[in-house]
């Protein structure tokens, strides 16, 4: 293989490592009307071990999204029959959690702003680097899995939102409904300290009352169940601020 100058070559090697290390069982829908570009994207993304379906117009894209479950949509704005912007408007109410990466050949800033406001999560201007598309795809999937995905994980603590189940090191932990919601909120914000007021507003949907120790009581319940049997304490108090769930 021809060697490029040192720095550029290292970058290529690093990208190859990142691409190879993704647990890519994700299923992607690519909606792109330019057939050679669409086929290239399919081939390239399959090379990153994603499952990829290809459609060339907006109506078929909509049908595919309604009949199959996808982890990410790569959407060209300039689609025939139903353009990308109209498609976004149709799918967002029913699929708020689907990450959408928009591709556009229009250089106008307005198009990109409109696409993001319409519900796109990210935007790439053509011509774009395939390596950048790959990195943005990984970032969107990572965000989905951390923030809005079915399963949240911090260290050996796993919370499954759909199955309403929590495990620590493979051992089941029984939580009440409120304890589960509290842990879920802390794990969605893992590694970021959250205040008692934030917990009160997001878990109890009520204004924070400084005279109440409700949050501290529930945090203790959760901590006793999650951390008691483990030498590594995941739920920690940040003095003067609140709480954090983190694995380091």
């Amino acid at each position, binding site marked *: 293989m021809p060697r490029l100058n040192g720095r550029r070559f290292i970058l290529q090697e690093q990208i190859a490592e990142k691409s190879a290390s993704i647990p890519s069982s994700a299923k992607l829908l690519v909606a792109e009307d330019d057939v050679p*570009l669409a086929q290239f994207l399919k081939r390239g993304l399959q090379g990153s071990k994603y499952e990829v379906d290809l459609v060339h117009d907006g109506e078929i894209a909509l049908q595919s999204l309604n009949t199959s479950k996808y982890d990410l949509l790569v959407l060209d704005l300039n689609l025939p029959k139903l353009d990308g912007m109209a498609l976004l408007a149709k799918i967002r109410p029913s699929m708020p959690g689907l990450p959408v990466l928009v591709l556009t050949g229009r250089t106008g800033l307005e198009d990109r702003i409109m696409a993001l406001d319409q519900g796109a999560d990210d935007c790439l201007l053509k011509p774009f680097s395939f*390596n950048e598309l790959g990195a943005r795809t990984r970032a969107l999937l990572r965000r989905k899995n951390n923030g809005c995905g079915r399963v949240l994980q911090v260290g050996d603590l796993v919370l499954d939102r759909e199955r309403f189940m929590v495990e620590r090191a493979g051992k089941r932990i029984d939580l009440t409904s409120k304890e589960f919601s509290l842990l879920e909120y802390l794990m969605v914000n893992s590694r970021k300290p959250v205040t008692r007021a934030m917990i009160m507003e997001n878990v109890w949907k009520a204004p924070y009352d400084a005279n109440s120790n409700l949050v501290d009581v529930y945090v203790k319940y959760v901590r006793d169940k999650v951390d008691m049997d483990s030498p590594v304490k995941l739920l920690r108090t940040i003095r003067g601020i609140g709480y954090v769930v983190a694995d380091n």
Partner: protein
Amino acid sequence: MSTENPGIRTENSVNSITVSISEVLHQTAQPLTVLLGILELALLQAETITDYRESVERSLFEVSRLIDCLNQARKIAVGRA
């Protein structure tokens, strides 16, 4: 005799050229994206002469699409002159 204002006609003509140029530029972005990607992936993944040869052949196809775009832009430029 046409009642159309010559000023408006010129403006429409300029708008039409602008739209065409914008369309050609848009078309240019597609093969450029593929070409860039083919070269990036060749650097990352190609191992054998056959892999490189396939990348070159696919690149040539995209270059031919770029040449088509260039020729379209030339036609617009000639029409404008």
